[in-house]
Structures are given as C-alpha cells and as structure tokens.
C-alpha cells in the first residue's frame, strides 16, 4: 500500500540557510506519525513546507498526487490540513463562524454534520460557540484550531506543537483526541517537543536534529532508544515536566 503522504529528499531554505536538509518521511492511512526534536530543529519549517507556505526542494506527494505545483488552498481542498503553532484563528469572529469557515472548501450540506462531529469531540466549543475566538483560553483556542481544521474533513491532519503552553490536564485531553482521530480514519502528523507524550500515542516516529532526521522507526523502539531517552525524555517522569 502506498503512503498517504510521502516526502522524499526534501530541502527547505530561508534564503541561503538550509533549515531542513534531505529529509524523507512517510505517513500511512490511519497512522499517527510524530516528529520529535529540540527547539529549532526544523520541525515547524518542514510542516510549513509540506502545506506550501514555504518553498520546498524535493518531492512531496499526497494521496498519490504530486503537490509541487499546488497552492496551499488546493492542498487543503485535497484533504491535507495544518494546525499551525500560532493557531492563526480569526480572533475577531466567534467560534461558530471560525468553524463554519473551516468547511469553506467542502459542500454546504456536509458542513452541518461536520460541525456536530467537532462539537461532539470538543463539547467545550459548543458551550462557547457565540464567544469571540480571541477571548478564549489557550486550551480552548487550540481546540478551536483543531476543530476548524477538522471541519474541512482532512485525510491527514498536521499538528504543530499542540501542547505548547497548555496546562497538563488539557494536554492529556488533546492527546486523547488525537488517538480518537486515528480511530475515525484521520491520519496525524504530530510535531512535538513533549516527546514522551507524543511517542506514547504514535505509531511511527522520527527524531530531528539540526534540520535532519537522525533516527526513525517504530515509536515504541524510539522511546526505548537510549540516546533519545537521554536527550529528549531526560529524567522526565509521567505527569511531571522536565524541570
């Protein structure tokens, strides 16, 4: 079976500085794949290039189609979704409008059912549906960003640091929902600094350092790898932060 998303020999540069070098990765159907790595390793840059915000040298194909000539909007319409690190919500619009716009590229008749599904996944959003997105708490904004992306019925959702700056209880909630997504047939490409939590739910994992993948394999094997344990999992214990 061919992979849903396949990236081969990708290079991404800011001017002359290459932030991502010769990276290859695959995400299959119904799979959670995580990329872990330190701050500045190039994880966000890679996701931005896959969705089309940054130019990428190399090959990217999604659902068997080459993405090279497609704009962001076309990639989104094909079922590739990104929840960016800064969420990029429509802060002066209410929750419901944000979600409605998430379904901009799908049929209007399907949007209604889509919204019910999102509300079922994030009951908190339903309670706040008339509230302006900018007035939500950080966790709620993350839920809204994920909900908005799910409104477009993506086949693959890319999440960039969904746990950043959120309280542990909300982080647990978000990771639970990521596994639910896989159960409902959505693949997830998860970029996380919280390596421990990410490796626990992922099927496959890549470790990124200074713009390159230094390790890849089954998530459980990566979690057991001594080097990874030393540099990313540290002396972290369950439920506690590293420091």
């Amino acid at each position, binding site marked *: 079976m061919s992979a849903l998303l396949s990236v081969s020999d990708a290079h991404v540069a800011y001017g002359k500085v290459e932030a991502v070098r010769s990276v290859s990765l695959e995400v299959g159907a119904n799979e959670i794949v995580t990329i872990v790595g330190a701050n500045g390793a190039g994880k966000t840059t890679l996701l931005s290039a896959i969705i089309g915000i940054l130019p990428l040298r190399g090959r990217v194909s999604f659902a068997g189609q080459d993405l090279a*000539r497609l704009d962001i909007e076309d990639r989104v*319409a094909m079922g590739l*979704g990104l929840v*960016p690190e800064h969420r990029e919500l*429509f*802060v002066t619009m209410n929750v419901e409008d944000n979600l409605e*716009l998430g379904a901009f*590229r799908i049929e209007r008749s399907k949007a209604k059912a889509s919204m019910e599904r999102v509300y079922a996944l994030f009951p908190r959003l339903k309670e706040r549906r008339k509230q302006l997105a900018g007035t939500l708490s950080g966790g709620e904004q993350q839920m809204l960003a994920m909900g908005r992306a799910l409104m477009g019925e993506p086949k693959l959702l890319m999440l960039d640091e969904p746990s950043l700056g959120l309280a542990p209880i909300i982080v647990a909630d978000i990771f639970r929902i990521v596994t639910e997504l896989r159960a409902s047939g959505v693949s997830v490409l998860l970029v996380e600094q919280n390596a421990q939590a990410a490796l626990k739910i992922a099927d496959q994992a890549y470790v990124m350092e200074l713009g390159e993948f230094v390790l890849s394999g089954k998530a459980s094997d990566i979690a057991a790898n001594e080097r990874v344990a030393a540099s990313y999992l540290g002396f972290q214990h369950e439920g506690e932060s590293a420091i």
Partner: protein
Amino acid sequence: MNTTIMLFLVQDGITNGAIYALLGLALVLVFAVTRVILIPQGEFVTYGALTYASLAAGQMPGTAKLALALGIGAFAFDLFVARKALHGRLILRSAITNIALPAIVLALTVYFTAQKPPVVVSIALSLVIVAMIGLYLYRVAFQPLAHTSVLVLLIASVGVHLALQGLGLLFFGAEGQRGPAVLSGAFTAGSLRFTGQSLTVYGITIAFIVGLWLFFGLTLYGKALRATAVNRLGARLVGIRTTLSGQIAFLLASVIGALSGIMIVPITTLYYDSGFLIGLKGFVAAIIGGLVSYPLTAVAALVVGLVEAFSSFYASNYKEVIVFMLLIPVLLLRSLAAPAVEEDKD
C-alpha cells in the same frame, strides 16, 4: 447665521457625508482584505458618473472599451500563469469572464447609446462597466503584487490612479458633465427643501450599509472576506483563496465608487479629475476609522461632510484645507494612543 441656513448646511453636509461614508467603507474593506490603499477609488467615482452622464446624453463612453482592453490584459495574465499546466476549463472560464463579458457589455453599450437609453439602463450599464474595470484592474495591477509590502502596493495604487485619470481626460474631455436626476421632484418640510436626488442618496447609502452588514455577517463569502482581513494565513489554511477575496473586495469597491458617482453627478458638475478629491475625503474618514473600523469610518464621514458644508459657508476658500486639517489632530491622537507598530511581513 439663522436656523434655516444652518439646517440647509446640515442637510448638505449629511448628503455629502453619506457619499464619503460609502467611499470610506470601500477603502477600509479593500485595505483590510488586500492591504492596498485604494487611491483610484476616486476614479471609480468619476468613471461611474461620467459614463452615466455620457450614456444619458447619447454619447459613447470610452470606459466600455477600456473594460474590454483590461479584460484582455487580465486574460493574458491568466494564460501566462497557467502556461505550464493548461487546464481547458480554467482557461474557458477566464475567457468568458475576461473577454466575452466585456465584449457583450460593449456591444450593449453601442446599441443603447444610439437610442438614448432610459435612466435605469444607463445606471445598470455604468455600474457593470466600472465593476469590470475594478475587477480586471485587480487582476492586472494588484494580484501579481499581492505578496509585496504595503509600500509597493501603494506605489502601484498611485500609478493606477494617474493612469486612470489620464484615460479619463481622453474619454470624457476636459469639460465637466452633469447627469439626469435618478429621482426628480422635490418636497418641502418646514423651511427645508428635499430634492428627490438627495433622498435617493440617503436611501441608497442606508441600503448599501445594511446590505454590506448582512453580507459580512451572514453569508459564507462575506465571512471569508472578513477572515482574510483578520488573518490571511488562517484564511489560506481553510482553503480561502486570497485572490478570490481580493476580487470580491475590488468588485465591491468599484461598484460603491460608481454608485456614489451616479448619485452625485445630478447634483454637482463632475470633471475627469474631480474623483480624486472626493475619494480623498472618503480617505480622511477611513483614516479617522484607523483603516479598520467600519462604524467609526461612517461616523467620521458624516463629520467630514458637515465640516465641509460649514467651512464652505464661513470660509469657502479654505474649505478643502479645513477638511484635510481634520487629519492632523486625529493622527496626533492616534500616534499618542497606540504604541508604534512595525509592519508585519506576511
């Protein structure tokens, strides 16, 4: 000054203010969505007004030809962009909107000019012609620059303004024109006399503002336009094309401009270059609204209209000076109230 004069000035100020409000709203809309400061907004006003006046007088307006020429230019841009992957359907659609449509409108214009069309037909033709010019201008002059800085877009905007003004002289000549009233007749209430035309101005302005409010609040495309204004990247990530939002914004701006022109050309004589000053007053209102707030812009536009009316009574030589001086205290207050913001580079 007695009450009658004051009431008369207030009435005059509100009529003009209503027009400035429409233009100011269009400027805010275009800036929020595309980051273009639309200096040619004034040309949309003169083009609309003078196309209407020419048609009513049985003369062929050159703007219909300009629309076709710009349409061909827009089609050429579409072809150039699609040169690597020629999609038959996309090219056909581009040919229909950019070439077939203005060609049909040109034919209709030629046909109707020969037989002095009724007012309604003149208005409809003028609106369509200017709307097409606005749409194609976006494709030719602004869409290719969409990713550049506000400054580059402003320079392009000035260029378009100068070009359109020159073409306006070519099409309509140096003499001013007046058009027939949309609604003739008048009635008096106390010492005030309301003409049908000024009532038309109020009615259309209010209808347009309500219409825009409904469009932005209730429709998916209206919301998409707001979303693009709030967060361009966020909009792209849900699949809203920046170019689509830009096209809608320019279409609305050109229709608003043309409509304003058609409403005032029966009241004042307009010349090929009158639009700039009218647009600039809408701009003053938009600046007072910070180029973001619609309600503040509408209120500011009424203030601009009133200040203009009263200053033309007390110091008619200085009326423009006084209106534009409104900007200085406003900018001063704004710069004191808001911390310095660097232009974001998206």
